[in-house]
């Protein structure tokens, strides 16, 4: 029988970490994601799989522990929420610059500043536009269910090691805190010593992990190599989900928790005979520009529903390139829109008001 569990999104991340062969988790408590560290400490995986779990003194220390851990070629991760991710910015840039794989989970809360502990999607720009110094990218996976918070730990590690880049799971306080049924079918062991790569420290090759290079020609070469990797990711790893877009005259674009609310707005609209579809980007970077551009040929209008002041809407406008109007529906500060809110906005726009 399938292994089903009713758990919170944050607990799903902790269970997935242990079951995905993760070697090390380094984190610091912050609401609304502390259940990840709490669950790991409760389960004591160092006694079963040998996974290291360490509560650091700060998010700055956490991400630098991830940098060190990733340098050993092993599967390592951290998790935090918005202010904590800001503290990790420098470390994430180092990880990208040194070509290291890792998984970073951001269970977003409202900002700016200390903001609120209530959910938000206001870290979209930070996640997909770099979020720290230098030209670099992270693959960003946006889960819309507890199941996806479980699965994206596996997918995140796979992508991180396929391209040797940092991968971020951009969740939020809704998905992190809510309970849902999760199929826990996927499971794999930690890598053995001879399964590790030959580029890391600890494998007897006298390897050097660094992001530093003072010769500008060599440094530009390293940058170009990174950009080639990013191009390859853009070609191969775009993921999105569509609902009712075949005949749609209006398309709502929404990610993560917003996509769940938007899918109900689609149902409300369809009940009234309005041809509305939903496109849910699953990878926020690479972003589904091409598919949105295609849809712009047949759609009258897009509505981007996101729990922020208007961030992903800029990428949708880039994709659509002025062909059709792109509107925004947002709430901030921990407030959440209802399906009716989105539908009303859509109707208003649909009527050309």
């Amino acid at each position: 029988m399938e292994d089903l569990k009713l758990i919170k999104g944050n607990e799903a991340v902790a269970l997935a970490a242990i079951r995905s062969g993760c070697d090390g988790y380094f984190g610091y408590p912050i609401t609304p994601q502390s259940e990840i560290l709490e669950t790991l400490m409760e389960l004591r995986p160092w006694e079963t799989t040998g996974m290291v779990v360490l509560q650091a003194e700060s998010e700055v220390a956490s991400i630098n522990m991830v940098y060190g851990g990733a340098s050993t070629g092993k599967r390592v991760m951290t998790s935090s929420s918005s202010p904590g991710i800001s503290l990790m910015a420098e470390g994430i840039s180092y990880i990208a610059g040194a070509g290291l794989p890792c998984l970073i989970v951001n269970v977003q809360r409202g900002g700016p500043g200390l903001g609120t502990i209530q959910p938000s999607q206001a870290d979209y720009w930070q996640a997909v536009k770099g979020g720290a110094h230098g030209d670099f990218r992270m693959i960003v996976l946006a889960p819309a269910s507890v199941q996806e918070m479980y699965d994206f730990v596996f997918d995140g590690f796979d992508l991180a090691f396929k391209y040797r880049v940092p991968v971020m799971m951009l969740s939020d306080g809704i998905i992190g805190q809510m309970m849902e049924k999760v199929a826990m079918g996927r499971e794999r062991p930690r890598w053995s010593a001879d399964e590790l790569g030959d580029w890391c420290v600890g494998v007897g090759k006298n390897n050097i992990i660094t992001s530093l290079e003072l010769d500008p020609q060599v440094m530009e070469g390293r940058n170009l190599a990174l950009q080639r990797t990013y191009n390859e990711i853009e070609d191969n790893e775009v993921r999105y989900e569509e609902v009712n877009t075949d005949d749609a005259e209006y398309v709502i674009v929404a990610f993560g928790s917003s996509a769940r609310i938007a899918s109900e707005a689609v149902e409300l609209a369809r009940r009234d005979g309005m041809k509305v579809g939903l496109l849910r980007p699953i990878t926020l970077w690479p972003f589904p520009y091409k598919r949105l551009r295609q849809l712009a040929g047949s759609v009258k209008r897009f509505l981007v529903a996101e729990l922020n002041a208007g961030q992903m809407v800029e990428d949708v406008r880039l994709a659509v390139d002025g062909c059709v109007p792109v509107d925004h529906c947002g709430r901030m500060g921990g407030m959440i829109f209802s399906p009716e809110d989105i539908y009303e906005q859509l109707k208003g726009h649909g009527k050309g008001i």
Partner: protein
Amino acid sequence: MEKVYSKPRLLTDAVMHYCPGCSHGTIHKIVAEVIAELGIESSTIGVSPVGCSVFAYKYIDIDWIQAAHGRACAVASAVKRLEPEKMVFTYQGDGDLSAIGTGETIHACNRGENIAVIYVNNAIYGMTGGQMAPTTLVGMKTSTSPGGREVNIHGYPFKVADMVAQLEGVCYVTRQSVHTPASVRKAKKAIRLAFENALAGKGLSFVEVVSSCNSGWKMSPVGANEWMEQNMFPFYKLGDIKV
């Protein structure tokens, strides 16, 4: 003829970027010798800082990780936890360890990570051009304390070694120098003991090496050593602090 001295085999042929008279070259040499003598070159992972010794990885032929400014002890903590059989050490200056990296250093010490920390204290930021560090002596002139360090503005010189010696996770703290042949031999013994402690899982060992920075101090190499003996040693007293 009997060969009485040779370059340590783990020192690479790369030309060191250090200024003539700098202590880093000597400290690199004794670290390389200790690793070779312990026969652990294939299982030693060094963590280099941001500062003059950022390029330590070019000079000693082992595994290296270059850490963000101040974060070497956090990086080393994770490496040691994931690779408990390996020898893991950090090599940091006073700008890196005693200023921006205070938090990571104290908490690695307090957790009793089984690593060695080599802390090169020359009381100044060398690489960025001689700015005041937390370790800069009272009255000492730097580019950011051009009239000399003033206590009422900048506070007091920071004795990190004395502070971390209070922490239970730390098994060995010593303050050494490398300005004479005798002091080099003592410093090497201290670094060897620190490495042995880490390998034996005794906790964190902290070896401070009080050093000169003649270019940052704007002195000749010999003059800098004399100034160090007269001014640094009375404040940063040499010897074991915790054994």
